[in-house]
């Protein structure tokens, strides 16, 4: 459901840290206001939340029945 609302999807489930983090921040750099980035992970990315807050992004987290954590992120002003 969340995937349909995202402009960029990063599937970090098979990536070793810090790759999902790096790719997410790079993707957030490139999106326009109103666009959204979705990160898929097998765990809750607690450090990412603080980085998002500091850099002016909003986010919404959902956990799917299979255990995947979906983090949808966008610019706060949009």
């Amino acid at each position, binding site marked *: 459901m969340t995937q349909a609302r995202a402009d960029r999807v990063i599937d970090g489930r098979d990536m070793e840290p810090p790759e999902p983090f790096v790719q997410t921040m790079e993707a957030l*750099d490139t999106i326009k206001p109103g666009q959204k980035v979705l990160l898929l992970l097998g765990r809750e990315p607690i450090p990412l939340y603080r980085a998002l807050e500091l850099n002016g992004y909003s986010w919404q987290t959902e956990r799917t029945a299979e255990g995947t954590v979906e983090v949808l992120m966008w610019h706060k002003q949009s």
Partner: protein
Amino acid sequence: MQALLSFDQSPPLDAPFRFFLTAPLFAILAGFFLLWSGPELFASRWTPAALALTHLIAAGFMLQAMLGALVQIMPVVAGANMGRPMRVARIVHAAITLGALLLVAAFLSFLPLLFKLSVVFLGAGLAIFVGCAAQALSGLASTSPTIQGLKYALVGLSVTVVLGVLLAGSLGWSLDFPLMQLSNIHLSWGFVAWGTVLLAAVGHVVVPMFQLTPAYPDWFSRRFSFSTLAVAALWTLAELCTWEVPSDLLGTALVAHAALFAGVTLHIQRRSKRARFDATQYYWRGAMISALAASAVWLLARTVTNVGEWPAWPLLCGILVLFGGFMSVIIGMLYKIVPFLLWLHLQNQGRGRMPAPNMKKIISERDMDHQMLAHLGSCTLLLLAVFWPAVFVYPAGIALMVANGWLMRNLLSALSVHRNHLLKIEQMIGNPAQ
């Protein structure tokens, strides 16, 4: 990348690193100690030298690495922020370092004053740590096996410390406690209820994350830490009340818990998506196999008379647990935690204008692989020293010093990469990098 990657949940680098850099020094000291004490150390688990060696590793190497990792992992993995982390780290590190050295000196001299001082320093340092960690975790709901496991591990650590204080205190103040019985309870809580529960709590995050394995199975995650603590508590009760049969059954169940963790970890590791194992994965695999071997030796000693009567079986078990198990898995984790923390710090300092070096360049794979072979050699020689102490104790001592000297070198070279990169950032940005 323009975004600022500031993780203000992370304590300053100095907080975990003072523990990480002290851990190998205790293991190097243990190597020297093997050379100094010679084959007599292997006469029995109760020789002063064997007790001193055990505590150089358990209260020295292991405790330093485990507390250092907790200082770092609690905020980042569980969102549990310890108040004033630098101050806590400084006080706890100084107290446990001094306390562990005093305890080793106490075992070698049997001077009551040294036991008393070790009780004061180790007891106070660990009480402060447990208090601060419990406060950080207290506001968090146990929504994940990691948070739940960290809470139970702190209970395990507290019981281990209280029993340790009673034991050392009884030697210091000549109190009349059943020392052998309390020692068995102390080490079981230390290895299983504290060590294994903490390892499982952290493993739930770091094994799937760094080794690209599936998650631990749900039936295991939901019950493991509570079940381990409950069995440890019931076994302790049975042991103190000298209920022989329940004590035997519950003791076996406790060892089975540790073996189960090892078995489940090996099972999910076999399904790793990584094409080629790295040093961390080999270290974890070796540690889990060693834990299973230790459990098998323990079980054999309980069931086969010849093995049970062999005085060296506890030493064999101890070496498998301490060196093959905990030391291996700790080094394997340091090889992920240390480069990750340094990468994170450099990424922050670069402020989007200079990217941090690739994490894999912070400690080279070659250096980690070579150090791992040295560690494997030291474990093999230590095991051989149980059977032929006069022949193998000296090579084992030298090998332990080499392996941990190499570990220290690898950690220092990572810090050197970090320092050089900070200088480059300073030159480029022209502002202080700290």
